[in-house]
């Protein structure tokens, strides 16, 4: 028992073992990500060409492009955001500015929470039965957009709510004190101050929409053609009531048919979009934090 000195540490092999384990587990995420990126990049890059993103599949011309799917994805993103942003922002404004804390707010927050926990396949089934069959919209971009609205509603509501919470109360009191009405105060003071948070929510939603597949399979269907313009461009609007497969759906279908070259090319495009969106959210949330500084 000579080594009772404080300076002599007892060797603890178990500690070192656990330390090692922690490092291994943490490196797993990086390894997995690196594998995914290199493999998808390696297999996908060779199939991506200008032709690939500007043509539609055609047996006569011998093309396998995904232009139609890109357009469909854009349609779905725009349509969904057009419906979901007003609803989500409106809900957040109600929860934060109008409602008194109590049962009603708890109920709304609980259901919003529940909504974000429901898997997309359930939304798909619901969208198919409710929007597709009951409302007779069938397989269409509109059905898909309405279904996705339900999925991203919690995202937008929560982000807007967080942003509204960071707006100092003195802004509200100041505006109301000099005679602005409540709606005028919300419109001119609150919403502009909360804008970075709202935009973050929107960008996150775009990411969710781009990556969504299970909810779209039975709602938006799987068309891959470009919208027909019609005489006055009215075809662009008619497209909303026609089926259209997004990039993810096309990826799934080509995977099913073992057309792996197309699949990897789409996967690469999806990864690039998703990573771009990730960077954008980072940038936006940094900006939000800057604004929060006194």
């Amino acid at each position, binding site marked *: 028992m000579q080594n009772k000195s404080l300076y002599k540490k007892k060797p603890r092999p178990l500690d070192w073992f656990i330390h090692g384990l922690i490092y291994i587990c943490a*490196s797993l995420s990086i390894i997995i990500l690196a594998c995914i990126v290199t493999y998808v990049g390696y297999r996908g890059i060779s199939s991506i060409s200008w032709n690939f993103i500007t043509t539609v599949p055609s047996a006569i011309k011998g093309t396998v492009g995904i232009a139609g799917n890109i357009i469909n994805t854009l349609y779905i993103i725009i349509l969904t955001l057009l419906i979901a942003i007003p609803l989500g922002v409106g809900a957040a404004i109600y929860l934060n500015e109008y409602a008194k804390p109590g049962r009603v707010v708890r109920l*709304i927050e*609980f259901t919003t929470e*529940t909504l974000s926990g429901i898997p997309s*396949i359930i939304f798909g089934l619901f969208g198919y039965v*409710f929007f597709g069959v009951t409302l007779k919209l069938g397989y269409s971009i509109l059905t898909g957009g309405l279904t996705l609205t*339900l999925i991203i509603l919690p995202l937008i509501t929560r982000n807007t709510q967080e942003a509204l919470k960071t707006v100092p109360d003195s802004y509200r009191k100041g505006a109301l004190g000099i005679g602005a009405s409540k709606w005028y105060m919300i419109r001119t003071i609150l919403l502009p101050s909360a804008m970075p948070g709202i935009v973050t929510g929107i960008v996150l939603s775009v990411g969710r929409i781009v*990556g969504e597949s299970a909810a779209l399979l039975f709602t938006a269907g799987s068309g891959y053609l470009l919208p027909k313009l019609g005489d006055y461009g009215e075809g662009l609007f008619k497209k909303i009531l026609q089926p259209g497969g997004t990039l993810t759906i096309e990826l799934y279908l080509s995977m099913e048919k073992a057309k792996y070259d197309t699949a990897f090319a789409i996967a690469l495009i999806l990864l690039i979009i998703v990573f771009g969106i990730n960077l954008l959210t980072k940038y936006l949330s940094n900006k939000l934090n800057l604004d929060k500084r006194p």
Partner: protein
Amino acid sequence: MDKNTYSIIGSNKSKETVERLANIIFTICAFIAVLAVLSISLYMIISGTPAIFEVGLKEIIFGTVWRPSGAEPSYGILYVILTSIVGTFMSIIIGVPIGVMTAIFLAETAPKPLAAIVKPAVELLAGIPSVVYGLLGILILNPLMYKLESAIFANSPNHQFTGGSNLLSAVIVLAIMILPTVINISESAIRAVAKDYRYTSLALGATQIQTIFKIVLPAAKSGIVTAIVLGVGRAIGEAMAISLVAGNVTNIPFPFNSVRFLTTAVVAEMSYAADTHKDVLFTIGLILFVFIMLINLILNRIMKGGKENAK
């Protein structure tokens, strides 16, 4: 504002109308979420119950033969339910320790530059679409699994070879997919533990590892349980990533069997199913929905408990 509203008491009628309208519109917006959850529940029940009367609840839940298009159709989904439960459980067993360890790394032991690499990597993993995971599962995991399978069952003639599309492949894909959820939630739970706990423990002579595992983790327990429950929800609801990886045959959930999950059963057959077959698929959706709602209720309980503890 226009020139007519200079007076304080003056003609405020139109302004008041706008105010009232704004109030009403925002209230309606807020209730959309309630309406959505109600109507989803309602429609899942409405479209999921007919098959129960047509086929019988016992035949569906406890039947083991899935033969929707046979001369004598049979709609037993016991194996499908079991697969979802077993598969989710296994992916939690694999994913949660790795996720919690990574969370410990990020919140406690990581040197800053390393954390600055791991954290974005986790965020990127969270954003990758599920179909991409599925694609990689088919082309990377399945061949590996096939090799493993061939090695293990080389001498057993009774084994039905699956080409690697089996429960184990699906479980690994699910484990990877729940990682970001588990890591993020447990990390914030660990970070939320008061610094004093750590200092006290370290001052008493405990090592860093002892402090983490005996003081910090127990203190962050409710957050980590939340992470696990959210992971369960994510795993049980995932469809597209595993629909092709798992092999899609109704089978007993043994690791090297091709299996079918609740979600993949719906994805695989919805497009061509009709009549009773379709109704049964909706019943499967209803069963999945019930699972998810149970998970949500548990989650709500935990969150409430956490809040009361915090007080």
